[in-house]
């Protein structure tokens, strides 16, 4: 979209402001695109146009957006089954994302992966991994490759609070720290591991940050609903990684507005908790901040309308895309494009 028409000086931004108007508008744009796309995914479920399961990032958009803006195009993202947001944040096609969720030919993975495996290697979105913890060592490996080849690429790995209790978390953090790898681990602490409050099953209050010292890393907690704060932390961690300073482990506090997955209405949450967090909705807060900084209502509204138009266009494009051709079944187990296991 043409953001240039939206740019304007942020009249009331403080002299100490390190983020700047263009970046702020990018942060808002990405949050809006993710929000509307996730809401659309939910609606398409209700219409039975999306099957299977889906894990939405509604309420958690600021983290993906902040890193999406902070990262260089050559950096790599590794995310979980709750990965629509992070994949979109790298610039993956919205039609490709919705098409994949709908099982259409236009999907990012041609319909072979589904909601939990969104990948767009051309954008550095190196996969969504649906086995908890698996992608933490994989991200370390990508970072090792960057270090080995002497590029300035950084691997950024997103995961939930529940991931901090699986062995691969420990193995990856330790190896990344010992090898001083350019990798940024981002724990999105949304307070629940699936249906269970994380504090009921974790020995420490902050499941990621309180364990950072075990790997010789700094204890970093950020308000994950504040895109600016998260952006600042992201830039610091990315710069450190690029400069050879090794990995970071960031715990971003947030809250998901919906249940764990499609099947979960989230009834285990105490009364009033969701309402309290809706007051801290990252998008609501960011909109208020933009207006407070002097961006005018029309600019903000234009970003919202453009994002909605993009989602509408992507939805229609995905709806008319045909289902994948059956010959896709016998493609791409091997590098030769085929599936043969015998002669």
């Amino acid at each position, binding site marked *: 979209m043409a953001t240039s028409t939206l740019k304007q000086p942020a009249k009331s931004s403080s002299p100490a402001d390190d983020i700047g108007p263009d970046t702020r508008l990018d942060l808002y744009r990405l949050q809006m695109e993710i929000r509307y796309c996730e809401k659309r995914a939910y609606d398409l479920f209700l219409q039975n146009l999306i099957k299977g399961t889906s894990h939405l990032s509604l309420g958690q958009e600021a983290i993906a957006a902040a890193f999406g803006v902070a990262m260089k195009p050559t950096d790599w993202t590794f995310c979980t089954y709750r990965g629509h947001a992070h994949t979109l944040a790298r610039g993956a096609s919205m039609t490709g994302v919705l098409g994949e969720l709908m099982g259409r030919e236009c999907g990012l993975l041609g319909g072979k*992966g589904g909601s939990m495996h969104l*990948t767009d*290697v051309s954008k550095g979105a190196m996969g969504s991994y649906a086995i908890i913890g698996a992608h*933490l060592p994989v991200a370390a*490996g990508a970072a*090792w490759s960057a270090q080995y080849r002497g590029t300035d690429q950084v*691997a950024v790995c997103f995961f939930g609070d529940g991931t901090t209790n699986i062995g691969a978390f420990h193995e990856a953090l330790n190896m990344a720290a010992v090898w001083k790898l350019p990798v940024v681990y981002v724990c999105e602490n949304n307070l629940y591991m699936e249906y269970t409050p994380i504090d009921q099953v974790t020995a420490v209050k902050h499941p990621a940050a309180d364990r950072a010292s075990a790997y010789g890393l700094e204890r970093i907690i950020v308000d994950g609903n504040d895109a600016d704060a998260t952006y600042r932390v992201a830039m610091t961690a990315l710069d450190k990684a690029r400069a050879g300073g090794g990995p970071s482990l960031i715990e971003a506090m947030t809250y998901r507005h919906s249940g764990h997955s499609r099947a979960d209405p989230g009834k285990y949450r105490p009364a009033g908790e969701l309402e309290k967090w809706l007051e801290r909705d990252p998008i609501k807060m960011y909109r208020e901040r933009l207006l407070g900084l002097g961006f005018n209502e029309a600019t903000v509204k234009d970003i919202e309308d453009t994002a909605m138009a993009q989602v509408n266009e992507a939805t229609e494009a995905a709806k008319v895309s045909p289902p994948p051709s059956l010959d896709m079944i016998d493609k*791409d187990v091997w*590098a030769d494009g085929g599936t043969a296991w015998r*002669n």
Partner: protein
Amino acid sequence: MAELTYRDAVAAGIAQEMARDENVVFLGEDVAAAGGVFKATVGLLEKFGPKRVRDCPISEQAILGAAMGAAMTGLKPIAEIMFSDFLAVCWDIVANEIAKSRYMTNGQISLPLVIRTANGAGSRFGAQHSQAVENWAMAIPGIKVVAPAFPADVKGLLAAAVRDPDPVLFFEQKSLYSMKGEVPDGEYVDELGKAKVIRRGKDVTIVALASMVHKSFDAANILEREYGISCTVVDVRSLVPLDTQTILSEVVKTGRLVTVEENPRLCGWGAEIASIVADECFWSLDGPIHRITTPHIPLPSADHLEDATIPSVERIVREIKDKID
């Protein structure tokens, strides 16, 4: 031709590929400074330095995950899992991540990597350090599975595995590490997916893998000499891709198939071969297909128990003789 041990052929194969391509890197537990617990990677650290030959923590998921992440971003890692039994603690990375990524992403992700591991019995290590688990790997779509029986094949197939664009699980038979054999000098690269006929006979075709190839060969000599039963021995070498054409054509010539497997009975690779042969050359068979395997038990440790459990030369002779008689 030089005479090398099976373990020296491992190092020779890795060294050949690391010298050829600087994107080839090697990682594992105790593989660098110590040269491997089986001394199969001695000298690689000295030759290629700590940047390319890396000692890892006891973190099998991190080792294979790192290999995967490195492979998808341009390197060609060789990762060692010290004992194949330990694959169980990182099986998610093998079976769910490495094997499936290309297919799930519609071909976006390529994983040119090799996982080497010491497999099988013969060292009295007990049930958690002696299993033959090649059949686990064979059951997973998306992983190539290789298990050499001779030093020359170790070097040639390892080189082929490194050059292969797909992930390869390379099973080294730990009881063969000290075995000597002729290995071609200079650059030597074999081909994955080709079985080898190592002995020709007219009565029975024995299909075997890794250490069972040697036992089958010895058994075939005894059967010929003492009972006049003449056997072909096929070394499968690669379970995926599987060279069914060689197996089928050799079975058709003798009319009999015996598989000799080290893995436990149920779902051993021989069952798949038996199924293919029954399906595709049933009318060429002169008698029932016979499978010789380890019983369906965890492996015992004591010398005489382990020896009685793993298919032996004597057992192969006896069972084939009984079947033919």
